């Protein structure tokens, strides 16, 4: 054993850890489990179980408004995440690999959307888009979502790029690879895990957004969270539980998928 034993102490030896952890987990997940359980309710009540059925799931899949909103959300998230990933990659390449003047200021501007209260961004975008005559709708949503997704895509990409050996690109140049091929054959494949986590993070953040989407979506471009909120105004039915459970399932699948891919990559 080393003279200085730097092995971490087992957290379970700290007093009260078990109780605290159990409470935290309960408060985090009990509501979600509750919601999922009642999504299988055979009755209309959201507080009394009248047997189990897939009735409300059938209702969700039969509801064209929910289907349309879900499609909008996914389409918007795919487009916004992809655009944000491209821009974040360009930004990360410049910030990590090149000499940039006022780097700290540039970094702050890049991450600005993380710090500004979302309601402010939402109202500002609403006013700005109507002032320049852009109007509400899918186009405005794409612009706004891309903007606030950039920092989420940027962080994992920049982290990956920082940990990558810049010497590999020099070595590729030494071995007769021109700049575009260096990027395509060396930088891009090694950056792939960062690109994937950046894209997924942006995708989830976009899919999940409510405040900005509720301000900017016009008729026909309603996203799923906005639509669920509007359903609540007509009273809570297990149908809301069912569609929410489906969203949880979709998010979980995305997270598991990214975990599996990143494990295989490394």
């Amino acid at each position, binding site marked *: 054993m080393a003279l200085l034993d730097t092995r971490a102490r087992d957290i379970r030896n700290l007093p009260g850890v078990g109780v605290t952890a159990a409470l935290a987990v309960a408060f985090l997940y009990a509501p979600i489990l509750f919601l999922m359980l009642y999504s299988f309710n055979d009755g209309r009540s959201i507080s009394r179980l009248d047997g189990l059925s897939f009735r409300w799931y059938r209702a969700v899949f039969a509801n064209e408004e929910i289907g349309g909103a879900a499609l909008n959300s996914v389409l918007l998230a795919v487009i916004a995440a992809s655009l944000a990933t491209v821009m974040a990659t360009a930004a990360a390449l410049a910030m990590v690999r090149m000499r940039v003047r006022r780097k700290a200021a540039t970094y702050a501007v890049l991450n600005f959307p993380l710090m500004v209260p979302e309601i402010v961004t939402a109202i500002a975008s609403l006013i700005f888009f109507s002032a320049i005559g852009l109007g509400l709708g899918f186009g405005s949503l794409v612009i706004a979502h891309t903007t606030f997704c950039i920092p989420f895509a940027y962080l994992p990409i920049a982290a990956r790029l920082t940990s990558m*050996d810049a*010497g*590999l690109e*020099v*070595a*590729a*140049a*030494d*071995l*007769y*690879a*021109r700049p575009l*091929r260096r990027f395509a054959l*060396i930088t891009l*494949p*090694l950056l792939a895990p960062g690109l994937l986590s950046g894209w997924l993070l942006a995708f989830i953040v976009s899919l999940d957004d409510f405040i900005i989407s509720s301000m900017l979506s016009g008729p026909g471009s309603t996203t799923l969270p906005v639509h669920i909120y509007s359903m609540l105004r007509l009273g809570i039915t297990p149908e809301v539980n069912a569609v929410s459970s489906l969203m949880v399932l979709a998010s979980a699948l995305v997270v598991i998928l990214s975990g599996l891919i990143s494990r295989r990559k490394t």
Partner: protein
Amino acid sequence: MQDHGDACRLTGLGRTYGRGASAHHALGGIDLAIRANEFFTLLGPSGCGKTTLLRLIAGFDQPTVGEIAIFGRNVAGMPPEDRPVNTVFQHYALFPHLTVAENVGFALRMLGRPRTEIAATVARMVELVGLEGMEKRRPDQLSGGQKQRVALARALAPGPKILLLDEPLSALDAKLRQRMRSELKALQRETGITFVFVTHDQDEALAMSDRIAVMQGGKVQQLGRPEEIYEAPANRFVADFIGGANLIPARMGPEGAVAEGLGTIPATGTGGAEVTLAIRPERLAILPAGGHQPGDLGPLTVAERIYMGNELSFRLEGAAVPLHVTLPRGGLRGALDFAPGDRVALRPEAGAIRLLAS
């Protein structure tokens, strides 16, 4: 032998970083002609400019002043991908997502060579460095020595006119380093490629090189064959850096150089001039004081006896600076041993004392 001209000619080469008062002159006034087919070594301590020079030849960096010609062709402003030069990097820089075969074939693929030619060359290179059967492995499945071989094969595969090696052995353990020295030297002889080898390790440089340029402070201090560098160092720095030498201050008198505590060493020079005497620790015989002969130095006092297994070393006091004398193990059999406090004299081998301008 056919005349190949110079592989690489450097003229008035300099590299300065920054501007004005904070400018750092990493390299200045370098004039070198590296011959074709030669094993040429840039030797010096860290920060001496040797790696900067290598980067300029490879094209990773551009000189502030001066010219570089590779086989007669001026390569000013030319990016690395256009130079007929390949590099073995200090930490190998193997592409982690490519297999050994893909790493070795990378340059040929970039040059657009046909698939069959690439496969044949890769097979030949893998065999040359003794990595048969490892073609499908990735770099993280290789040991340090194997990575070193892949890096070598990858740089040799496109058939460079000059191979640059940046401290390629420094990351290996001592035993492997010893073996790779011989292999590198043999490889250079077999391929006939000009090697430009950068190292801070004088043993490596002496063992492998045809010629060595000793560098310090961004300048070449001495250029010559290993024997010349070792036996006839041009200045204090070279004498001290290569092999270590006793550097003794002296003043020229009528009969030779007079050194405090040692006596007069026959030499000619301007009277009164300050000079430095350089003497290798292993080129001095040590004997008991008393039987003093003309030409012996001393007497001196033994201050420390240092046993190092294959040799025995003494630190002597009584001169202007402490002197070191090293006896090979064979010398011990002559029962020549001394303890601290013993009075001794020194008898230099013929031609062992070099006079350097100080």
